[in-house]
């Protein structure tokens, strides 16, 4: 495999890793709130969270370029604060991925929390645990399969992200040239050997990740 191919794999792993960590932190409170609330806003919030599943990546990519380019107010604010532009940068890809993969983190968590119910959480609180403590020491271990599913789906989905990156990335090696873009480039330049290698790597990786998750969740379910 060429250095460029390896660089693109490492970049994709980094993007998927960072996105997964941030999204688990962001999605957990959202999913917990959604699983417990009867608030009027529950429906709208759920719909917004699920939007990236339905919307084509071109919509997200287009809005991203339209609102976050350095000449737009929001993009200009970012440049003022950080000194660098969001478009065509790794940071920009992370932000796009956070939005794009949000439902893949929230939905498994929400269903895990909903299956669990509130009994254990309330019992822990009656025994004197704070809400945060009760969540961390009771809910998180019980909902672990949900967290694993959320992490795996987010990671795998970000790894496979293509349309958004094509629209907002700019194909910069080491910064925005992810493995899916590299494959696209190889196919377009008829370098099928390199495309085959990278595609096979992705295929095996995706299969292994999913297999491991299903086996893990299956074992846990049969153990309880």
């Amino acid at each position: 495999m060429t250095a460029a191919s390896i660089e693109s794999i490492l970049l994709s792993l980094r993007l998927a890793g960072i996105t997964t960590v941030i999204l688990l932190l962001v999605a957990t409170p959202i999913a917990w709130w959604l699983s417990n609330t009867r608030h009027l806003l529950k429906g709208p919030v759920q719909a917004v969270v699920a939007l990236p599943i339905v919307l084509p990546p071109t919509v997200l990519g287009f809005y991203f370029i339209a609102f976050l380019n350095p000449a737009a107010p929001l993009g200009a604010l970012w440049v003022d604060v950080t000194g660098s532009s969001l478009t065509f940068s790794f940071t920009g890809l992370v932000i796009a991925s956070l939005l794009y993969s949000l439902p893949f983190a929230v939905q498994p968590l929400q269903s895990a929390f909903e299956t669990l119910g509130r009994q254990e959480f309330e019992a822990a609180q009656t025994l004197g645990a704070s809400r945060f403590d009760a969540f961390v020491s009771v809910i998180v271990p019980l909902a672990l399969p949900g967290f694993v599913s959320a992490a795996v789906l987010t990671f795998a989905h970000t790894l496979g992200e293509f349309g958004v990156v094509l629209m907002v990335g700019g194909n910069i090696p080491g910064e925005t040239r992810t493995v899916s873009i590299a494959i696209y480039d190889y196919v377009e330049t008829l370098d099928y050997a390199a495309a085959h290698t990278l595609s096979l790597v992705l295929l095996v990786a995706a299969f292994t990740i999913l297999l491991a998750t299903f086996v893990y969740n299956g074992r846990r379910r049969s153990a309880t």
Partner: protein
Amino acid sequence: MPRISLILLLLSLSEAVVAGVVHVAVAANFLEPARELAARFEAGGAGIVRLSSGSTGKLYAQIVAGAPFDVFLAADDTRPLKLVEAGKASQAFVYALGRLSLVSADPSLAGRDCREALLADPEATLAVANPDTAPYGRAAAEALAAIGDGSSRRIVKGDSVAQAMHFVTSRAARFGLVAAAQVSRPGTAWPGCRWDVPAGLYAPIRQVAVLVIDPGSRNDAARAFLEFLRSAEARALISARDYGLP
């Protein structure tokens, strides 16, 4: 049964139309002129034109893979000639000579020297088409080396010269090296600066058209379209859209 007869009429119409459809793969830089040419060709009644645009490299790969195009309007000569050599195309001729322009859509640069503005701002992002698939990207890389921009500036690559232009007009990228024809679109004034790169600074962009050989069809409409592309009317339009003529 007026509704049924209407449907029958539409069916018979679409059948008549299918016989004269030309599927044209057009390099992204030439999409706008191709649309105008297609409209005039269709007005002549010799057939209907369906345009698909992308980078020349992408379209070439699609044709090699058996995409059902009748005509290929490339942005270079190497890929169409490769098709001819491989026996997949015939009738190659240069339909336009491409010109490269350095542009910025930033209104504060209006009236300024675009080349100086670029060289004075080594931090600014420059958008080009992907040199591996787009002939205008390759020309951009050559021009950039020729004007001595040795800065380590951020260069973003569009999937085609059309995406490079989109990066410029959306102002996600401050500068871009694109096709002159994309900048001088009729009826619109360019908001920022523009510098037409002198022809000597990049290898000539000889845009070649070919008839893609499909053994299954007689390609009458496709031949007619290529014929039209060589006509004085078409050449006048191509020239008016900021292309050179062979």
